[in-house]
Each structure stands twice: as structure tokens, then as C-alpha cells.
């Protein structure tokens, strides 16, 4: 995948656990885990907005583009 989700880095910086963030954002643990492990195919803007608000960061802090070749 060319788009990498660096959610775990940001979560570590803010010292917040997976279930805690999931509860604050309003999604299930399973779904947040899918997102964290780069298994997701897409992210809704509403979800991204909520995560950024809770972690107090920019989308660019969570998402990263890496060229495959």
C-alpha cells in the first residue's frame, strides 16, 4: 500500500490506548485495529476528523504517502 497509516506512532506520542481512542472517536475496537494495522481500504472524513480532534493533530501526522517502487 502506498498510503501508510501511522496511527500507532501518534497514539504513542499522546499516550492513549486503542480501546480508549476507539471509545472517544466512536468506532469499534475492531475497526480501529483494522485502521491501525493498515488493513483498511478507505477512511471516512468524519472518522479522520474525529481522530484528529482526539489526538490533536493533522491528517498528515497520521497518513503518509510512500512510493512503492
Amino acid at each position, binding site marked *: 500500500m502506498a498510503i501508510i497509516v501511522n496511527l500507532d506512532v501518534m497514539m504513542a506520542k499522546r499516550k492513549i490506548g486503542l480501546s480508549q481512542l476507539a471509545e472517544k472517536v466512536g*468506532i469499534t475496537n475492531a*475497526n*480501529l485495529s*483494522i*485502521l491501525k494495522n493498515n*488493513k*483498511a*481500504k*478507505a*477512511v*471516512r472524513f468524519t*472518522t479522520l476528523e474525529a481522530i484528529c480532534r482526539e489526538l490533536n493533530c493533522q491528517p498528515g501526522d497520521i497518513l503518509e504517502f510512500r512510493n512503492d517502487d
Partner: protein
Amino acid sequence: MKYSGRNSLSAYLKIFIVLIMAVAAVVIIGLPIFFKMYLEWLDIFTSNVIGYNYLLTVLYITGIASFILLNELRKIFNTLENCNPFVIKNVKSLKRISILCFLIGIVYTTKIFVLNSFMTLIIVFIFIVCGFFALILSDVFNQAVKYKDDNDLTI
């Protein structure tokens, strides 16, 4: 009226299908006896052995095919009861149903040439049409499964 889930129309239809399957199993096992009884009751049992054997073969093939078809339907209704119909298993089930429908249609097509009746023509028509419907429905389900996968992985 609920259409899928517990205590819904699909749940009751599944019970109905199981009942039909039980009756079908009894009929298939005792087919030669029942068939003979039926012909005697109609008072047309003759020594025409070729016709009798042919009809018995037709009934066996279509009977077993129908039984497998009902089983596939039962599996589909099972997933409907669990509120999760868009799985690849159902796509395969519908494909199998279409093949079985075509098989029954083809077997009855041979009956047109051996022992034709108006009902035979109707059966051939219905099963061929059903086969095509099931084939198209399997493709629709296949697309739905893809959409569902995409949706499930959108967080």
C-alpha cells in the same frame, strides 16, 4: 413483517424447505413403489417396460437434482436468517442452483421427444428460465459481496 433475521419470513420459509426436503427424501427412496402405485391408481400400468424405465430414470435424476437444489436453497435461507446474505458461499450456491435447474430442464427436454405433454413443455420452460435467473442472481450477489467487502474495510 420481517423478511430476514430470526422469526422472519425467511426463517419460516427455511422450515418449510426442510419439511419439503424430508418429504422429498421419502419419495426418492420409495420412488419405484410410489410410481407403480400411482400408475396402478391411474389404471394405465402397462407392460411398456421402456416407457416405465425411462420415466423412472427421469424421476430419479430430477428428484435427486431437486433435493440438492432444495439443500442449496436451505443454505441461502440460513445466511438470510443470520442477516449475512452477501457471502461468497451464496454466490457458489446460486451457481449450483442454476446448473441443477438447467439439468432438470435438459432431462425434461428429452421427455418431449419420448412422452410429450403440455406440462412437460411448461416444466422445461420454467426450469430453463429459473436457471438463467439463478445465474444472473449469482453475478448480482458476487458484485454485492465486493461492495460489502469495500464497505466493511472503510473505517
